[in-house]
């Protein structure tokens, strides 16, 4: 019986010849990611009696969750992290404004195929887009990895999701993954690894792959991965990265389950409050007025996403009473969007373009909701209170196209 991608990757990361689902291994990460939570992690690190991180070239930190800091406490939090980075000689530190950790890590070449990326953030699954295994862990575990350079992992079973067909014109990777989550439910891949296969995935660019792997976390997946192919190769070539081992799942790998989807049938989708798997076609939603439209985040804040939105917004105006907030995923994204005229179109339509960061996605600052307000968002979570107010009337998750079209209409509409 052949091996799944995660079995091969975890074997390599733990120095074993082969491992099987169910086994516990000690895996060594290619990179360990954290963000504004690094201050809290450093405290645990010192509480553990650790003095120096095991390898400063394997630690990645990007400041993104409260950028620019809305109050002195969060500013101080950043200061603690900068001091820690300085004192430990951390090599992969990215200042506030560079972008969201999951965008910055691949952009600056810190992921290669076939490796394990551990991250103290639940959307570390994003890095599966590059044929790696992005595995989220907690803060204490991250501190322990900083100290020891390894952590225990159970080799998960794998679910194979085959996305076939051709997407309709107003349907995007976000719609596909929302549809899949609606079917598999919020714990449909709990403790499991997910491999994405099929025509739709093969023809998807890196940006779309990052979106679907990012949201694999919302099915409870330990990792969501797209096996390495020419699309990935081109992406690595463009960064000048050529040194890596290609790891692919075997044809006869043992999958726990296989789900096939005919994506030709999918229409624009929306996840209704307050659960990510509460998914319906936008066309069946009925009348839902909005107060805020959030475009951006690590799920859908890339050039491709902003371009689609800009094309819809071009020459039009955001509806009265609606605020369109735009958070590009990184400075590189913002620069490219500027040079392509994308930002101009968004701003002229009334969009408020902010610094590359998480923004109101986690509800801490930068455009939180008021009681009774409702939002349509290109992010990945619609839990109660997620955008800062537990008395909101709901967050609706959708594609950047649906977000843009809805911002113009003042209610959620099919793009």
């Amino acid at each position, binding site marked *: 019986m052949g091996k799944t991608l995660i079995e091969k990757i975890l074997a390599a990361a733990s120095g074993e010849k082969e491992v099987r689902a169910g086994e*516990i291994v000690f895996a060594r990460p290619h990179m360990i990611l954290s963000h*504004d*939570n690094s*201050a*809290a992690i450093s405290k*645990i690190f010192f*509480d*553990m*009696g*650790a003095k120096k991180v095991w390898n400063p070239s394997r630690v990645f930190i990007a400041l993104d*969750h*409260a950028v620019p800091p809305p109050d002195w*406490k*969060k500013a*101080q*939090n950043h200061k603690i992290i900068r001091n820690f980075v300085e004192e430990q000689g951390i090599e992969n530190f990215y200042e506030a404004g560079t972008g969201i950790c999951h965008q910055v890590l691949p952009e600056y070449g810190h992921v290669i195929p076939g490796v394990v990326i551990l991250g*103290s*953030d*639940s959307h570390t699954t994003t890095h599966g887009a590059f044929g790696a295994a992005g595995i*989220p*862990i*907690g*803060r*204490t*575990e991250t*501190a*322990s990895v900083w*100290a*020891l350079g390894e952590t*225990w992992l159970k080799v998960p079973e794998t679910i194979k999701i085959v996305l076939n067909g051709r997407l309709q014109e107003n349907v995007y990777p976000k719609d596909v993954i929302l549809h899949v989550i609606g079917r598999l439910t*919020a*714990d449909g891949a*709990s*403790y499991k690894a997910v491999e994405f296969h099929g025509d739709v995935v093969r023809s998807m660019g890196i940006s779309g792959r990052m979106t679907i792997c990012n949201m694999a976390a919302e099915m*409870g997946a*330990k990792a969501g991965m797209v096996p390495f192919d020419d699309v990935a190769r081109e992406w690595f070539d463009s960064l000048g990265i050529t040194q890596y081992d290609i790891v692919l799942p075997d044809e006869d790998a043992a999958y726990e389950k296989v789900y096939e989807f005919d994506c030709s049938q999918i229409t624009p989708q929306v996840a209704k409050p307050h*659960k990510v798997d509460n998914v319906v076609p936008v066309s069946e939603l009925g009348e839902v007025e909005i107060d805020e439209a959030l475009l951006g985040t690590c799920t859908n804040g890339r050039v491709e996403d902003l371009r689609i939105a800009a094309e819809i917004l071009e020459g039009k105006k955001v509806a009265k009473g609606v605020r369109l907030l735009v958070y590009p995923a990184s400075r590189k994204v913002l620069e490219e969007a500027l040079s392509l005229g994308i930002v101009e179109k968004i701003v002229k339509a009334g969009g408020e373009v902010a610094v590359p960061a998480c923004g109101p996605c*986690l*509800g*801490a600052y930068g455009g*939180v909701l008021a009681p009774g307000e409702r939002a349509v968002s290109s992010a990945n*979570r619609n*839990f*109660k*209170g*997620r955008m*800062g107010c*537990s008395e909101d009337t709901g967050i609706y998750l959708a594609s950047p196209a649906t977000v843009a079209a809805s911002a113009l209409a003042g209610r959620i509409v099919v793009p």
Partner: protein
Amino acid sequence: MILDGRIWVLDDDDINTDVIYPGKYTYEPFGPEEMAKHALEDFDPDFASKVEEGDIIVAGRNFGCGSSREQAVTSLKFAGIRAIVAESFARIYYRNAINQALVVIDCADASRFARKNKEKVHGSRARIDTENGRLEILGEEFSFVPLSGKALEIFDAGGLVEYTKRRLASS
């Protein structure tokens, strides 16, 4: 270890870490006692004031899904919760709990029983034998798979902080 505590039935599936510990506090430099005051705030605003030392939570499927924030474990632990029984747990929450030495028990039968008989079970007492994997609610007996291997080693050390300390000290 034998635990005996009062039960809180949280009658829902997918109770996520945002309602257990709201995102707006995650970057506040709160100590654990302060965190405990906000435990389950967006699920049951009365929880933090009524919870008592030694209490046990029984919830539905996929408990602790969503963000990987550990405060969702810390806040419950310092609020006095000694164990969480659920039909199933989100993976990161489960790991975080073991790493903080909070007892988490996967037991679908007990969860379903408690939710079905919510009126009677809520506020009654549960008895848990963690080593032998036995759990008793209202005279009904349930069994679960006790921790073993690496996970048990970390739990027994008192959590991952202590475990790492020991490993660093011995290296």
